[in-house]
């Protein structure tokens, strides 16, 4: 039993940090926080578009992590547990503030694609092209339906497997895979289309 626990901790260093935090080690929490703060923040920011709301939910997520630390059990990976909390908060708050259908709408606060793209797209620099395509992708992500957007972000941002994403979102693995595939297809088409449109403008 102890061996299994030790193995789990070795496999997931986040769990070890979390256990140290529950024993009163604040530095362990700092390390855990700095490791996951960017991904979690973008998880909210990309889905909501509203920076203020994203920050509120982001802070609330960490607050719940801190409060629930005493009862933390190593049943799941720390990241799965963390994003499960984030997912629940997101669903609760967004549903409370907006109609469910609006989740499928493009996230508010996003600037039009033309405003985000540099005016000079004729540069020969390949790096510049990638930057432009990255900006297009960012815009296209905001156009995705909420469930696909979440599945895509969790997959790309955190590298979660379909099973883990299904556990976080509370859906089956096949449904999660479908969401990711559709998201990929939609994003590729969107990026291609937007890039073509920009090229035609040139």
């Amino acid at each position, binding site marked *: 039993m102890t061996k299994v626990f030790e193995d789990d901790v070795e496999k997931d260093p986040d769990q070890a940090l979390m256990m140290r935090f529950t024993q009163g080690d604040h530095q362990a929490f700092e390390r855990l926080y700095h490791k996951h703060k960017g991904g979690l923040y973008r998880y909210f920011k990309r889905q909501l578009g509203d920076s203020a709301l994203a920050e509120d939910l982001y802070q609330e997520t960490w607050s719940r992590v*801190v409060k629930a630390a005493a009862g933390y059990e190593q049943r799941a990976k720390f990241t799965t547990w963390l994003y499960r909390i984030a997912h629940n908060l997101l669903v609760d708050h967004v549903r409370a503030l907006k109609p469910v259908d609006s989740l499928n709408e493009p996230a508010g606060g996003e600037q039009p694609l033309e405003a985000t793209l540099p005016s000079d797209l004729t540069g020969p620099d390949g790096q510049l092209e990638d930057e432009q395509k990255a900006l297009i992708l960012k815009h296209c992500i905001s156009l995705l339906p909420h469930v696909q957007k979440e599945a895509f972000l969790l997959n790309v*941002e955190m590298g979660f497997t379909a099973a883990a994403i299904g556990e976080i979102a509370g859906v089956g693995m096949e449904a999660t895979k479908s969401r990711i595939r559709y998201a*990929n297809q939609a*994003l590729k088409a969107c990026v291609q289309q937007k890039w073509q449109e920009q090229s035609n403008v040139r």
Partner: protein
Amino acid sequence: MSDEKDKMLSDPELKALYQAEAKEQPSSELDARILAMARQHLDEQSGELGTTANVVSVSFWRRYRWPLSSAASVLLLSSLLLLNLQGPAPIDEQLQPMLLDEPRASKMAAPSEQQGPNAQADAIEATQPVQSTSPQGVMPQSVKVQPRQADVSDPQVQTETAVKAKTQAKAMISDIQAVNHLQQLVDGELWTDADTLYQRMLKERPRLEDKTHPQHAQWQDLVSKIKAQLSKQ
């Protein structure tokens, strides 16, 4: 296998494009706020733990003082109860059998000294205001004792019995015993002691001078011996 399929799920090109723009970070103020919250939570927890430690430090005897004292009281009372059940009976209860066996006790006191029915009557005489020298004198005593046996539970009877017991205890030494004692002193030629006892019996038992007294002859014999010896000295 599953990991490979999952890898195929993510498009490398999209992933690369995404990561190129994945630069948003929470503000430093937000970071500081969250880390401060975590530190505060730890401080509160350690404070609670300190309070708990104080509670735990209360000694076992203090914590369970009421159950322990109750248990000790019950134990003490039980012990006393058991000791009383097995211990000596109260004085009244001890006296009652003595009184009831009084004639028998008298018999046992001088079994070999009985010189006929009168001896028994004489022993009873010491405790009776009405003297009787007849052999039938024993019967009234027995008859008198019987009702007492029936009424030992009556408090008034118990009080009377206790007073009577004291009187009778003093008169345990009967005339027979006293004369026999004097006889032993004379036989042992302890003349001084014999004279002392003689003087005392003369005062306390003047009835021995009565010629009708069963021990009168023995008494006179002893007195004459003592006087003869004292005159020699």
